[in-house]
């Protein structure tokens, strides 16, 4: 562990800055002011990151599809989000005539508020967590579960068949994959023995030789992480699970009838949910803010956290550019017939891992169980499918 004062200052620079700023106030106001300052930073930082991500996403998708992407506004098109922001602010806010105005108005607000709340418990660096809750993980899932209702409110209040269908699809999908998301995180809780996210990071922040003790580097952790990643993709309605807003089928899904800034809020909420769920995955399986190799600890912890989150975002974009969309029945079958049993098995393997004690035996046993189950379930699931050359009746 690095101990030089420069390192500590760089690592804790935001904490030091906050304390310095709050120091100008009378002592009685300081704790409240510190919290308000952190909230302001979270509320500004993540939308900024969202703006950057939209450019990178459009550029990356362009690259994958062999075209340039946005390149007119500013150098390399990097001012595109500013133009988009001004556009969405100045556009007319249309509420359909037969829409349920109050619910139509409340839906985007409640979505964005709930998503912002998720960031309150994420440790973004050493000592950098807004509220270090005893039940932090539970808080995160409680908040992400309440976004489903906003999606439903948006779809139902618009009085539009596309919106309603999109909302139904979105809610069904989110409920199905939420089970997997929760259960795959439970494995981490079983090993750490705590629901507090800072404790979970601290438990992974040690090294054997130069290699870290991240949970992804254990058999149960790898299986859990894969399940978590699949469920997180479905939970954020990203491709290949983007059925709720598949534009070729449903125009834009539950936010078809939204325009102007309300639409921008939905867009923002979607990307913020992506950041939050990547942040949670990073915290649970990828060691949070800890460095990937022991001699890299001189780089500040917050850089590691945000690099890991942005790497996950990159994978999201990559998958969007390369994978086709699933069908509704495939989606549900995959969730309930493959992901859920496999996650339950992973829980049992985790328990086995916990009680087998140190040694190489538990590595062999849990890897064998998980690999065997993966192969067998894959074989059984695909038994009825017919692979090989296909004949298309109308395309010959």
């Amino acid at each position: 562990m690095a101990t030089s004062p420069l390192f500590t200052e760089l690592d804790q620079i935001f904490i030091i800055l906050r304390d310095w700023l709050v120091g100008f106030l009378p002592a009685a106001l300081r704790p409240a002011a510190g919290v308000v300052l952190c909230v302001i930073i979270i509320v500004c930082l993540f939308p900024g990151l969202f703006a950057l991500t939209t450019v990178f996403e459009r550029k990356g998708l362009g690259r994958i599809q062999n075209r340039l992407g946005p390149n007119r506004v500013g150098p390399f098109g990097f001012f595109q989000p500013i133009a988009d922001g001004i556009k969405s602010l100045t556009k007319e806010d249309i509420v359909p005539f037969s829409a349920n105005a109050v619910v139509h108005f409340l839906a985007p607000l409640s979505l964005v508020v709930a998503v912002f709340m998720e960031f309150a418990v994420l440790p973004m660096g050493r000592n950098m967590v807004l509220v270090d809750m005893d039940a932090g993980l539970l808080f995160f899932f409680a908040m992400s579960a309440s976004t489903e209702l906003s999606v439903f409110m948006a779809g139902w209040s618009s009085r539009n068949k596309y919106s309603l269908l999109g909302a139904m699809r979105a809610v069904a999908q989110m409920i199905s994959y939420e089970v997997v998301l929760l259960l795959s995180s439970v494995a981490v809780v079983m090993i750490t023995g705590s629901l507090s996210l800072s404790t979970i990071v601290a438990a992974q922040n040690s090294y054997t030789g130069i290699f870290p003790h991240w949970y992804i580097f254990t058999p149960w952790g790898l299986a859990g992480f894969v399940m978590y990643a699949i469920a997180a993709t479905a939970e954020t309605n990203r491709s290949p699970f983007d059925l709720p807003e598949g534009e070729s089928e449903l125009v834009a899904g539950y936010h078809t009838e939204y325009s102007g800034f309300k639409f921008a809020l939905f867009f923002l909420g979607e990307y913020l949910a992506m950041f939050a769920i990547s942040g949670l995955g990073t915290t649970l399986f990828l060691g949070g803010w800890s460095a990937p190799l022991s001699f890299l600890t001189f780089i500040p912890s917050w850089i590691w956290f945000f690099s890991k989150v942005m790497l996950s975002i990159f994978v999201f974009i990559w998958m969007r550019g390369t994978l086709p969309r699933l069908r509704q029945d495939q989606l549900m079958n995959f969730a309930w017939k493959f992901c859920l049993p496999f996650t339950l098995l992973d829980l049992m393997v985790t328990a086995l891992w916990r009680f087998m004690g140190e040694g190489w035996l538990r590595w062999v046993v849990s890897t064998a169980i998980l690999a065997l189950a993966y192969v067998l379930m894959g074989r059984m699931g695909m038994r009825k499918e017919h692979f090989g050359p296909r004949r298309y009746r109308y395309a010959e």
Partner: protein
Amino acid sequence: MNLVFYLLAALTIGGGLAAVLLKHLVHCALATTVAFAGLAMLFLQLDAQFAGFAQILVYIGAVAILIVFAILLTRGSELPKDGVFSRSWFVGLVIAAGVFAVLGWAVLESMRALPQQTAVPAVTVHDIGIALVGRYVLPLEIVALLLTAATIGAVIVAMHEKERPR
């Protein structure tokens, strides 16, 4: 009892009343959600983090969604012409008041039976977990069995529907 408590109580009761009195079924469901949220915040105000968050996760994240889904799938979202209030609302009111009176009486009695606690008990999530798999393991298992039976029952009902057209 402070201002926050009264605000939350007003929110909860308001949500509950709206759920009963509003005409549109989906509005009623959303009002129920407000009542659930108020209850969760009351738990949080009492420093019961686990209960509060579990309330949000289970009731807002699952039960409310289940209610709106049921409403939409059964075409109940269309407004009936002859009013939404049942003719026997008075009987319902009496039964509800009776249940409330019994529950209130039980709560007030328990305050007399138990010694007054002055210090706030510090219960962590860890303690709740230990208690759930220790002292209360039998009730937990019974609830789990009941829920599994309910799930299997639901699956059987759904399967029956599917095979009928053949």
